[in-house]
């Protein structure tokens, strides 16, 4: 198990690797989207524009599968941001991992990045010092996936309260008032399952990659297969996260007449 480079500053713990890869994912997502939507044309779209329009229609398809098209349009942008960010985050850790070994605590400009504690932990596990993982998928960190899940959680309840107040509040008491605790539990479990599902899939993929790497040269074919499969998993998880977000939003905001 590798450790994270944690910068302690003013009582906060900044995990440099997670923050770093999150920023990288952020930049890649933004640059890809920006480049893909360059030179937009109504009558003569470029190949990149065609691809982006396909993505838009794909996400619109996801959204409309759970709510009417009119209402779905407002969430297409959210769905696109989610699916692109998560997909890029998922495959970011696939090509390589950067791990450094530190027998001594590391300080940069008087700030501790690798603490004495971390070095001790590494030695306890039989290494020469702290093994610091610098490059990984941001979604292989539960704190990031929980952040995304919390965004969705906040959105669901905010939109539910704003757009569908009466039925949103009523649904906690359905079918009977006694189900109230169960309904609360259901709502709380939504972001937790979202976060853990995404995190566990990606984290397990990276663990398996680092395990295969231990096999050395013989592991290369298996590594290739697993990395290919991991791209697939990354796409599926991004898709699933988006689908569930849309389903939750529609559950909270759409009141169907009976």
């Amino acid at each position, binding site marked *: *198990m590798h*450790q*994270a480079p*944690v910068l302690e500053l003013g009582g*906060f*713990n*900044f*995990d440099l690797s*997670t*923050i770093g890869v*999150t*920023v990288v994912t*952020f930049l890649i*997502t*933004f640059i890809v*989207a*920006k480049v*893909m*939507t360059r030179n*937009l*044309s*109504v*009558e003569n*779209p470029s190949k990149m*524009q065609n691809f*982006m*329009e396909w993505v*838009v229609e794909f996400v619109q398809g996801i959204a409309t599968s759970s709510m009417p098209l009119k209402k779905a349009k407002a969430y*297409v*942008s*959210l769905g*696109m*941001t989610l699916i*692109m*960010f998560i997909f890029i985050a998922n495959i970011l850790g696939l090509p390589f991992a950067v791990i450094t070994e530190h027998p001594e605590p590391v300080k940069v400009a008087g700030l501790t990045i690798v603490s004495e504690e971390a070095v001790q932990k590494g030695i306890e596990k039989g290494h020469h010092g702290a093994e610091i993982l610098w490059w990984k998928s*941001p979604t292989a*960190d*539960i*704190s*990031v996936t*929980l*952040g*995304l899940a*919390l*965004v969705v959680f906040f959105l669901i309840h905010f939109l539910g309260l704003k757009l569908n107040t009466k039925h949103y509040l009523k649904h906690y008491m359905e079918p009977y008032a006694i189900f109230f605790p169960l309904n609360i539990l259901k709502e709380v479990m939504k972001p937790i399952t979202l976060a853990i599902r995404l995190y566990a899939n990606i984290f397990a993929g990276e663990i398996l990659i680092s395990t295969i790497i231990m096999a050395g040269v013989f592991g290369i074919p298996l590594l290739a297969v697993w990395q290919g499969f991991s791209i697939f998993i990354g796409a599926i998880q991004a898709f699933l996260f988006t689908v569930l977000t849309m389903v939750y939003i529609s559950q909270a905001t759409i009141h169907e007449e009976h």
Partner: protein
Amino acid sequence: MEFYWENTVFAILAFALLYFLLNKYAFGPLFSVMEKRREMVQEQISSAESNRKEAERLLAEQQKAMAEVRKEAQEILEQARQMSGKEADEMIRQAQEESARIKEEALKDISAEKDKAVAALRGQVSAMAVMIASKIIEKQVDEKSQEQLIDQYLKEVGGKL
């Protein structure tokens, strides 16, 4: 692996900012372009529809005008035919009148000539009678010879006539 809540906050902020930026600089323009295309297609469909209707209307108008023109031509032809028939009748009538007039004139001429001839004959006959009388007086012939003479003269006269 430890859990750092700072990461969670950072991820939330990063995602919110990414959503904001993408919405403003990438997806917003893309959506508006897609919307514009949709509108363009709609517009083209509706304009094609209206063009088709216009064409149909024009075609109907043309057909109507064509039928009218054909009818008019028919009428003109009919009129022309009637007119020419009348004209021919008129010409025939005129010709008949003309011929009748000519015939009448000819008849008048003939009768005038006849009257003239009869008048001339009368003159001659009276002159001959005077001559005959003078010859009778000259010769002092008997009744028989008188008759013979008269016959002879009459024959002479008849031969002259």
